[in-house]
């Protein structure tokens, strides 16, 4: 049995108070194991992005628990949370978020260098990550010198560089064409298969189909799970 790396337990999130109160999440629970990719699908405003920001410790749940590896995020001190986020959790967003004044390899190595890793060692790890995304040759280019698909692959490389074990992606191919999207999700899937736990928020069914499980979220609640644990022979029988 693979280890559970990320767990949300009955998470509720409320914004505002009184008449302006909005319940973004109403008791969402979720477990993601090493080597598993879980897709979250739902309409705009269903709570899927809130779920991801809470899973990554960027927001605190109103009630409920978030566990990453063996730590309970709501109980951590801000400095401990920042360290855990930097060392354990990788994010991929629709709009890449690369630093334009740094080269590709500098962008990927940055989180490691911030953690105090020696520059040479950090660059080596960054290059390995880029090579696994099949873009090692772009290491010394700047973000504005490469295509959108290549930029997103750089962002994915940055999200899992070093010892990170949880990858959170919010519409990672939202800005890409269909062919590039497939190359990106294929690369991301390969990385997950190597033992990382991943959560992918998307409205694109083609993308979600790469996940092991698809959770459908509606009005802040996970209302459905579509699992991929069926063989083609069972299917349609």
């Amino acid at each position: 049995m693979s280890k559970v790396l990320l767990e949300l337990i009955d998470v509720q999130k409320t914004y505002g108070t009184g008449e302006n109160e909005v319940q973004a999440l109403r008791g969402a629970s979720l477990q993601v194991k090493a080597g598993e990719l879980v897709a979250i699908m739902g309409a705009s405003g269903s709570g899927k992005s809130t779920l991801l920001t809470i899973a990554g410790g960027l927001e605190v749940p109103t009630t409920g628990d978030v566990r990453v590896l063996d730590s309970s995020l709501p109980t951590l001190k801000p400095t401990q949370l920042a360290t855990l986020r930097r060392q354990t959790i990788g994010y991929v967003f629709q709009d890449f978020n690369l630093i334009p004044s740094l080269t590709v390899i500098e962008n990927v190595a940055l989180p490691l260098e911030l953690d105090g890793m020696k520059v040479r060692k950090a660059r080596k790890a960054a290059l390995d990550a880029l090579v696994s995304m099949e873009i090692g040759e772009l290491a010394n280019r700047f973000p504005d010198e490469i295509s959108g698909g290549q930029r997103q692959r750089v962002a994915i490389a940055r999200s899992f560089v070093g010892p990170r074990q949880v990858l959170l992606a919010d519409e990672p191919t939202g800005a890409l064409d269909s062919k590039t999207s497939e190359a990106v999700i294929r690369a991301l899937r390969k990385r997950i298969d190597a033992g990382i736990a991943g959560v992918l928020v998307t409205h694109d069914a083609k993308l979600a189909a790469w996940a092991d499980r698809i959770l459908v979220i509606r009005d802040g609640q996970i209302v459905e799970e579509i699992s991929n644990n069926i063989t083609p022979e069972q299917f349609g029988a």
Partner: protein
Amino acid sequence: MSVRASILAVLTMGECHGYQLRQEIESRTGGSWQINVGQIYSTLERLERDGLVESAGSNEQGQTRYRATATGSVEAQLWLTSAIEASPEARNELAMKLALAVTIPDCDVEKLVHAQRVQTMRTLQVLTATKRDVDQNDPAELPWLLVADLNIFNCEAELRWLEHIEGTLARSAARGLNPNQTLSEPAKRGRPTKTN
């Protein structure tokens, strides 16, 4: 899909006998199209009658080999490079079923749409999982990949359509709009009843 045109297209590459044509078409369509060998032979006879193929003699097993004539090759090229027209198959069972369901009293259309979304999502997962395991650099997989991608995009289109009509149904229900759910008076057509 045109059996006739597909046979012609394969024969532009060289001589084949009937069973061989069946195998060629099957492998060239990613295993998605299996034609009855009897249908191949009857089509070959018609193609020969129309001057589009001709016999190239028999092989050692006594199987007749065929090749495309010049006219046949031109027709095959025309077919291969022209678009196809929307077919009656576009009237698919799901659309007809849903259209009918909204007119039947107490029919849980929402449940039907939901069940279909799950089913289509599963199909999409299976197709994607199979595609994931395919070697992208193996040219032998190319025909299958093309067909698989069509099925994947069709699934996606169906899911988007289902999501869209879910909204349409909800809006329609909120406004209290219901299609006519009673049977109409029978039309005064058809065979007249005998009076004596």
